[in-house]
């Protein structure tokens, strides 16, 4: 496995298992369930994090703590009612021109690799793509996106087509950087309030934990691919861990 993924390493299965147990089986008071799931997830992360005296552990504990804090600081009556949209914006500077980067993003066929750390993407044509994301609990969500705006050398924006449990949209901006520094690239991902309990749990999990790392990783992967022709990876990294055999 790629231990470089944000929640990689031994903790991943623990979180997945915890979620599997925590995910509600049927219908019911959805908002209560969502709150419970978030609280459990936050607690599990905090506990796992604090138990592992390591850097990854500290990161987990922080993430878990933040999730707990957010959930507990809500008025209990409003739990789940106010489902904030998750929106994450991150920027990176890449040593190529805006025109080159635009072409790379739009026409290069590289998106499946750039986003490969969290989604499987199949590009059906230049404007449409099919996304599949694995969420904790061994399930997956998928949706189709369509490019809704694209201005050469400036931006590309896309959004999911109706009918997904996790409606979302995204955009990437290109802006020349000063001096010889290339282009400032900004990626924004936006997940809308979900329908259904699974979608809710997934969105909450995304909202509280993953998106900032996920978007940051996507940008770094894009930058490395464009600047060096490859993405750094720990794939098939020799170690005495069972998972890399």
């Amino acid at each position, binding site marked *: 496995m*790629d231990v470089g993924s944000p929640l990689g390493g031994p903790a991943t299965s623990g979180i997945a298992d915890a979620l599997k147990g925590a995910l509600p089986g049927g219908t019911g008071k959805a908002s209560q369930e969502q709150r419970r799931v978030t609280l459990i997830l936050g607690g599990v992360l905090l506990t796992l994090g604090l138990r592992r005296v390591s*850097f990854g552990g500290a990161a987990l504990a922080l993430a878990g703590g933040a999730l707990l804090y957010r959930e507990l600081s809500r008025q209990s009556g409003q739990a789940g009612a106010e489902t904030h949209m998750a929106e994450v914006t991150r920027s990176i500077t890449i040593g190529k021109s805006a025109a080159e980067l635009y072409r790379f993003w739009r026409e290069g066929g590289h998106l499946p690799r750039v986003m490969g750390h969290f989604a499987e993407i199949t590009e059906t044509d230049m404007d449409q793509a099919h996304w599949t994301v694995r969420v904790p609990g061994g399930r997956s969500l998928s949706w189709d996106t369509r490019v809704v705006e694209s201005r050469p050398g400036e931006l590309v924006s896309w959004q999911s087509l109706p009918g997904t449990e996790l409606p979302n949209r995204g955009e990437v901006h290109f802006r020349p950087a000063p001096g010889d520094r290339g282009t400032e690239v900004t990626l924004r991902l936006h997940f809308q309030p979900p329908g259904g309990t699974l979608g809710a749990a997934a969105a909450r999990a995304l909202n509280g934990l993953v998106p900032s790392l996920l978007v940051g990783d996507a940008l770094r992967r894009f930058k490395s691919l464009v600047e*060096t022709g490859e993405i750094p990876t720990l794939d098939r990294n*020799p170690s*005495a861990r069972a998972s890399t055999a």
Partner: protein
Amino acid sequence: MRALCWEGVNDLRVQTVPDPEIVNPHDVILRITMSTTCGSDLHFIDGYVPSMLPGDVIGHEFMGVVEDAGSEVKKVKKGDRVVVPSFVACGDCWYCQHDLYSLCDNTNPNAEVQAPLLGYPTGACFGYTHAFGGYAGSHAQYMRVPHADVGCFQVPEGLRDEQVLFLSDAAPTGYMGADFCDIQPGDIVAVWGCGGVGLMAQQSALLLGAERVIAIDRFPERLKMARDHIGSETINYAETPDVLAILHEMTGGRGPDACIDAVGMEAHGTGPGYLYDKAMQTLRLVTDRGQALRQAIMAVRKGGTLSVLGVYGVMDKFPIGVIMNKGLTVRSAQQHGQHYLPRLLEHAVKGELDPSYLATHRFSLEDGPRAYQMFKNKEDGLVRAVFTP
């Protein structure tokens, strides 16, 4: 293949692990011919530096022979005998193009996880923690080297492995530390630490034109090495009450023009300051024992340079007021080895630099755990343990 793995704090084991493979087009697979211990390994072996995972293959100072090369590797080829810096650099990003190789933007697969620690992430280091990339290290029979055209340097004919091995890490780190001092004619440079990096910093300061070099350590055999192999003047701080006063007198009351810290977070020392550091570190309230660094800051002349090579984490009691009031220049980095290796190989060919005396002890890879035990405790005058897998 066989490899020396970190299994937990103070728990190293030699195990059988999968062979490395070419994964990316700029990778090579190296058959390791020599690999050595480095003081910075001790930080995670002792558990002061986090983000190791059980089973990680360690080791980051090495040389070898190219066994296999990826499709985009142009400059090195199968059969080449090469030495490789410990930090992985892409050669293409802004930092690499400005000779700041250890700050590479494109080689750390865990950059997003490291960034919150430092503000912005560094490049990756072989055989080190997952915050620094998590790549498998060199205490193994084979290893994968990404961006091989940037990292692999051909060894000129006529140089023995022992002469070249330390050009992977100790020599470029020490040379960089001396280079940071912007040495002018007449300059006196003081170096804290006579391990591999400290000795290389002393020798580099002389190569770069220092008038005199003063070395500070507590092990008589290391101080003797500094005198015999380099010509440094030495101070044994364990035997003298006041290092600052001695430095003051040795430099006509001016102080050294530049001070190099080649010690880092697990510095030893004497007196109440050291006891305080040790207590705080034992309680895990700080990661560092900063006595050597604080002493170097106090010792350096007004307007002088402090060059920090020692590995540090988060330190309290950092005397910024001394730095500010004395108008010091502080420079520091993990080694930019790719920048210095061509120069160092030239010095080696001309006979001006021969670090082979650092290789005080040889071990087989299977003896790895015992070698690290001896290295850590500096038993039997061991300066560097060298593995020949």
